[in-house]
């Protein structure tokens, strides 16, 4: 067979080839063809979210995270970039490798930006795409972390959500959690994709619990307890809230005197419980719902400005000094 090929034809084809093909299709990941192989990309993205980084590198001094404290922070991207660069340096042997990695690095960086958003994708949530933005988070060191495994953590971009409301994962104001992990039995690390205005931490909703609210009653180690009254006909708390005192047996700390407490329950107007109390009615009054702590509610001002804590000793370029979190108790 006789084939005629002209130089122009060959050149055109080669130009097409060279310009149209994606370089190095190395894998079929869910992000499609990328320069960095998928396993490496996933490792580097986890590294970006501080996976495996020793705790002393995160908190260099234990006094920065004392017991029973919560510390909010911004993630320093330059630091995590340096972390990734260190990991990449393992793969270079000679100067030509290094020169090549230098050329490739901007593309690698962009790819890991994309990848870090899909490291944690819970079932119903769709992953956000696009370039990485500001990452924030908090470290919580408390007995609440060890005693209540499975705390619910939610962050919102703006304080539109009522403090008692439930919001599903897809809410537009809800920030995506990039990472939520217990680093130690009593230390919880959370990373958010964005800067939250409000953070909710909620007791896990495991089953139904019964109990009281304790209140200091003057003297040392002396306590009173009460429960907010509920109506037996509707099951809702009374409006306005009416507290019913819980009575105790003398000489036995924490042992409830049921007879007197039952009397108190029956005598509280609005509880609609008839003349005698039964187990169901007692249980109804004692049910305690999961507690939710709200951080950052702007309606409450911080008692102490956080700036006051800092002592400037180093001159450092700061383009944007922004303090968003403040001590708040709902």
């Amino acid at each position: 067979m006789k084939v005629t090929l002209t130089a122009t034809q060959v050149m055109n084809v080669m130009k097409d080839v060279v310009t149209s093909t994606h370089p190095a299709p190395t894998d079929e990941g869910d992000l499609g063809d990328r320069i960095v192989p998928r396993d490496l990309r996933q490792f580097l993205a986890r590294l970006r979210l501080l996976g495996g980084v020793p705790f002393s590198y995160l908190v260099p001094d234990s006094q920065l995270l004392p017991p029973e404290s919560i510390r909010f922070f911004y993630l320093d991207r330059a630091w995590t970039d340096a972390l990734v660069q260190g990991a990449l340096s393992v793969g270079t042997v000679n100067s030509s490798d290094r020169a090549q990695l230098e050329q490739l690095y901007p593309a690698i960086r962009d790819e890991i930006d994309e990848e870090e958003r899909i490291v944690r994708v819970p079932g119903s949530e769709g992953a956000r795409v696009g370039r990485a933005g500001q990452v924030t988070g908090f470290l919580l060191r408390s007995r609440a972390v060890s005693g209540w495994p499975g705390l619910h953590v939610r962050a919102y971009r703006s304080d539109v959500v009522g403090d008692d409301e439930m919001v599903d994962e897809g809410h537009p104001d809800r920030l995506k959690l990039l990472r939520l992990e217990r680093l130690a039995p009593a230390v919880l690390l959370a990373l958010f994709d964005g800067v939250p205005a409000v953070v909710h931490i909620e007791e896990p909703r495991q089953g139904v619990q019964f109990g009281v609210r304790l209140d200091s009653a003057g003297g040392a180690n002396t306590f009173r307890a009460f429960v907010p009254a509920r109506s037996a006909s509707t099951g809702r708390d009374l409006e306005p809230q009416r507290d019913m005192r819980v009575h105790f047996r003398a000489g036995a700390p924490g042992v409830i005197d049921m007879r007197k407490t039952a009397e108190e329950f029956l005598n509280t107007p609005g509880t609609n419980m008839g003349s005698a109390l039964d187990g169901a009615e007692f249980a109804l009054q004692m049910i305690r719902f999961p507690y939710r702590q709200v951080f950052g509610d702007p309606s409450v001002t911080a008692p102490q400005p956080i700036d006051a804590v800092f002592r400037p000793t180093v001159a450092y370029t700061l383009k944007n000094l922004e303090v968003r979190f403040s001590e708040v108790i709902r």
Partner: protein
Amino acid sequence: MPQPGHFRLHGRAQPPLVAGDYVIEGDQSIPEEPSARFDSYRGHLRVTAPRFRLPPDHILSTFPPANSEGAYETRLPQIVLRRRTLPWERSTDPEVPWLALVVIAEGEGELSAEKKVEDCVTPGVTLTGPNDVATGVHLTVTESVVKKIFPTKDDLPLLTHVREVDIHDTELAMGDDDGFMAVVLANRLPQFDRVECKPIRYLACLINLEGQYDVLPPPSEPVDRFIATEFVYDAALALEQYQIDPDLAQMGVGHVAQLQQMQRSGGATRARQAGSAADTSSVRAGLQKGSYAGASQPKTMQQWQLATQTVENVAVTAPSGEASRLVRDAMKVGFRFPIEGFTYERVFRFPVLTHWSFTVTGAGGFETLMRNLDVGLLGTLPAPREDAARPPCADPPAGAAPPPTAIARPEPELAETGHVGLPHLTRRGEQIRAWYRGPLTPHVMVRDRDPETEDGRTPLAHTSDQLRRVVPDGREDLSLAAAFEIGRLLALSHPSIVAALMRWRREQFGAARAKKIVELAAGSVALLKDAVHDVGVTADLGRLLGRSVILASAKDPEHVLAPVRPLKDPARPIEFLVNRDIDEVLSVGFGIPLKTLHTMRERMDASVLSEVPVPVSPKGPEMAIDRDALQHALAERVNAIATDVLRGQKDVITHRSTAKTRKRSEPEPDALDELLDVAARRRREEIEG
């Protein structure tokens, strides 16, 4: 059934029959036939219910979870039972459940080893009727403990209820089969040990009250507040003094005999026991132990941690068949003081259906913990507080040794930017201080903030030293260098990652070489050079190039390779047919006048052809010869056909008879058939005649 997320509460669920043996008697008589006699029916029926041991599958959940630690001060312990009628299945009074959940702290009671069920109740009480198991465990408590912490008989109905949920609600139903479950609450809020400031282990026991309702305390004078440090009972105090080994006591040997003797002879023990029993409201101060609690704290703390640890170890290591028994056994640690051996109070035994332990490690509950959190940005030192970490505990008694103070640590050197000054041992051995800041900062950080580059992006570093910076105060900032180094170490610690990096490097290197070759080869062609330059590094360019050339050729082969051959070729043109009228060709070819052809086409009738004379060729000598030969040949041919037909007719006869059904498909005999028949008849006559 309530919808998911909702539940309904019922006061109680009455079993149709309480547990026990029944006799069914049946008699029948017919009034019309008084003389007729029928045998009476007598059947035995046994209604069973757990009595001394609760099968594990009856328990749906417990709160606090078994072997857990937490601040549970504001929550009532509870157990959820699968069978909704269980708490009333052995009740004598249908209103009052026979089950109670009591919560005792370490030292307040003794949990026995497996014993015969007859020994599991207070001596003197006998439980009639069938038992579910042969051996069980019991709780031994003194009268004062019963008075203080056990529920009264009137409390029991209030502490038990039935919950109805949707069975599809995983959160509430927890895998129950009918959506009804019985809940038994305890009447005691477990408290943190504020005297010694240490966690307390509690044991929650589901006890059987059958036959012992009268032991329960009478209603007492209520108070509206409680003092968390009030003393209930502690068998451990006596134990500490005499070093009683619970195991030896159990076996009835060793110190117990001595101890009992000492107790009988009166003396210090008795006085002290009596004292603590009489003065029930006395605060359990450290004095009772003779030393300040703080000093003994490490020891008690260790004990508690040891107990929790032991349970965990047992849970992990025990063989699966015995795991539940061994774990329950391990949970008894701390509840094995042989109370009956040394107390002079009345002692009661209650059968324990199931038990679990938990530890209260802090004051308050979740709410208290969250409210008291120290909130701040990272880089904030804790606000000065009196005692933020420790729950408020009792003051040390006067005269006791001062509590051990924590070793003072120097405050960290903290900069406003979040940097921390840390000791730095340089490579030359100098001990200096350097700044370090982790990835978590108190300020918004700009990602690309390198002042030396145009876009602010830090150029790729190849060693950590490239990232060392000197800040204006003259000290080094090692934050990024440390980050680089830990990143490198983390990558090196994963062999698979190192392998992946090396593999990637090889691929990249191959691609670069391919690119170089293309560049060299196409050096003279400006077009290709640009193209290669635009794309940058490509891996495996050669393979791609080859594949793409083939693909591109296949897409447009006419231009790249050659014109395509058509699917069919036209035949060669016939010369005399080209450019001539078809009628004329017919007229010349068949010798039909042109006019006849036209008429035929006009009428659409071929009959006109019969009038056309057949052209006869001019006579000639050679033609005559031909005619004879032709005549002969024709005759021969006709004969042959006729013979064939004759031969064939035999077939045809049989053929027709068999093929009647196919008649329709066979053509009607036409003129040719007739001719053939005639020829065949003639031929047959010829042959026969």
